[in-house]
């Protein structure tokens, strides 16, 4: 269930949102690739006020041996929020939420990474949320895709994380913090822009089928825009820069 505080006004009288965006407008997105020298691949993504940083290590030997797969690599994904990333400080360490997000993010990325190229090995994907303003799991997925590409890990496609939702009975793209807290539904997706496939899907709240369809349409439109920014970041990293 979403917050359910139905009486909070989230739309202005002219139909725009509290931060001035139109219903199908996403927050500004900035991406940089290769920002962590110690990592094999890395990315920094700022989406609205969210900041996610991802490091990729590997392929490396998978240990303990019981986690090895004879025919493919395993993806070891961790999603973690920094203690100072939220309004109230978070105690360091894993919780149920971060474990679930780590799991579904790993499964999304496993769907695109060519794991069969690296039998018996492990690829580590470390997602660190430094500032959270609604939608961090999506920002983490986007950043992880760029970091994997930066590390030179072969993939069928990159995954773009993006969410739409519903506020005041209106479908809107890319919920901000107030909209997430007081809205009626949230529909995060992991979209492969080249193949058009979905590899990550969650939802909570209340959506009609028509609303689901419109939210999905918004998500695909935004995914294409974010994908361009991801590609530009990777080109930026390797055009003329040091290898």
């Amino acid at each position: 269930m979403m917050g359910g505080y139905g009486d909070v006004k989230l739309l202005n009288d002219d139909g725009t949102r509290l931060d001035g965006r139109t219903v199908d407008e996403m927050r500004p997105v900035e991406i940089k690739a290769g920002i962590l020298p110690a990592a094999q691949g890395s990315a920094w993504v700022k989406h609205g006020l969210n900041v996610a940083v991802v490091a990729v290590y590997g392929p490396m030997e998978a240990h303990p041996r019981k986690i090895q797969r004879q025919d493919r690599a395993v993806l070891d994904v961790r999603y973690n929020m920094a203690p100072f990333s939220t309004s109230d400080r978070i105690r360091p360490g894993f919780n149920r939420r971060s474990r679930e997000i780590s799991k579904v993010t790993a499964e999304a990325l496993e769907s695109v990474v060519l794991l069969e190229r690296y039998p018996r090995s492990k690829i580590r994907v470390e997602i660190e949320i430094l500032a959270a303003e609604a939608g961090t799991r999506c920002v983490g997925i986007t950043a992880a895709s760029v970091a994997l590409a930066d590390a030179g890990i072969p993939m069928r496609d990159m995954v773009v994380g993006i969410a739409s939702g519903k506020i005041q009975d209106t479908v809107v793209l890319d919920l901000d913090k107030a909209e997430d807290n007081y809205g009626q539904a949230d529909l995060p997706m992991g979209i492969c822009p080249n193949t058009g496939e979905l590899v990550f899907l969650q939802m909570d709240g209340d959506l009609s089928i028509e609303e689901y369809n419109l939210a999905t349409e918004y998500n695909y439109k935004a995914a294409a825009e974010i994908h361009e920014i991801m590609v530009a970041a990777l080109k930026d990293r390797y055009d003329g820069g040091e290898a």
Partner: protein
Amino acid sequence: MAAPVPSLLRQELERLAESDQRIDGRGRWDRRDVQLEVDILYNAEGSAKVTWGDTVVYAGVKFELRTPWPDRPTQGSLMCGAELRPVAHRKYEPGPPSPQSIELGRVVDRGIRESGCIDMEALCIVPGEKVWGVMIDIHVLSDGGNIFDACGLAAIAALRTAVVPAERFDVGEDHVLAVKGTPVMASFQRVGGRFVYDPCEDEETGGEERIHITLGDEEHLHSLQKGLKGAFTPAEFAEILEVARTHCGELRELVSSMEGN
């Protein structure tokens, strides 16, 4: 990046030391390039990012209301912690805080606490009942060597930009946290038989003992720590202390130049 063969690395470091060279081409007392950005994270009441050579560190300040310790009813509290999460290097594993990260957090904590730059009495709201707890969390994102100095710098820079969120907690108006002084750390490691300032990753891998010195505004010592196996002489310490004075002064100016949020 890949784990080097330590004995070969050590030989190479010793060979370089004979002609007073370093593996990355620096002079013995040279510092790598340091960049500081402050007030960069939404939700943190104060924040800083330090890029120190190949090392990248973030620090964030949060406040919470708590009841004071019974023996110090008019004082707030300060806590500084560091996390060496697996994001920072392939050598770090997930799990509970390692002794290494606890040492790091505590050494940075002591430098700030003992410099007296935070007036604990000023963090009191209602004596015996309600005080501010200041939490500095340091997040190491890339360990390229000498994370101690980078963490110390990030912590004090984040503190110096912190705003006490009194309105959100309904205890008055938001105000800038009063910070009197800028304690700065300088770290040294024995590499190839002699101490060098600001060890890089290879020098840490192939080096021996390290010494961390935190100096306050008046060049008083506020925290010292010797880490790892090894022995040094008072004369060696006197030599590195002189170097620490110069570098701490330069870095203190860098922090001061960032202020004015």
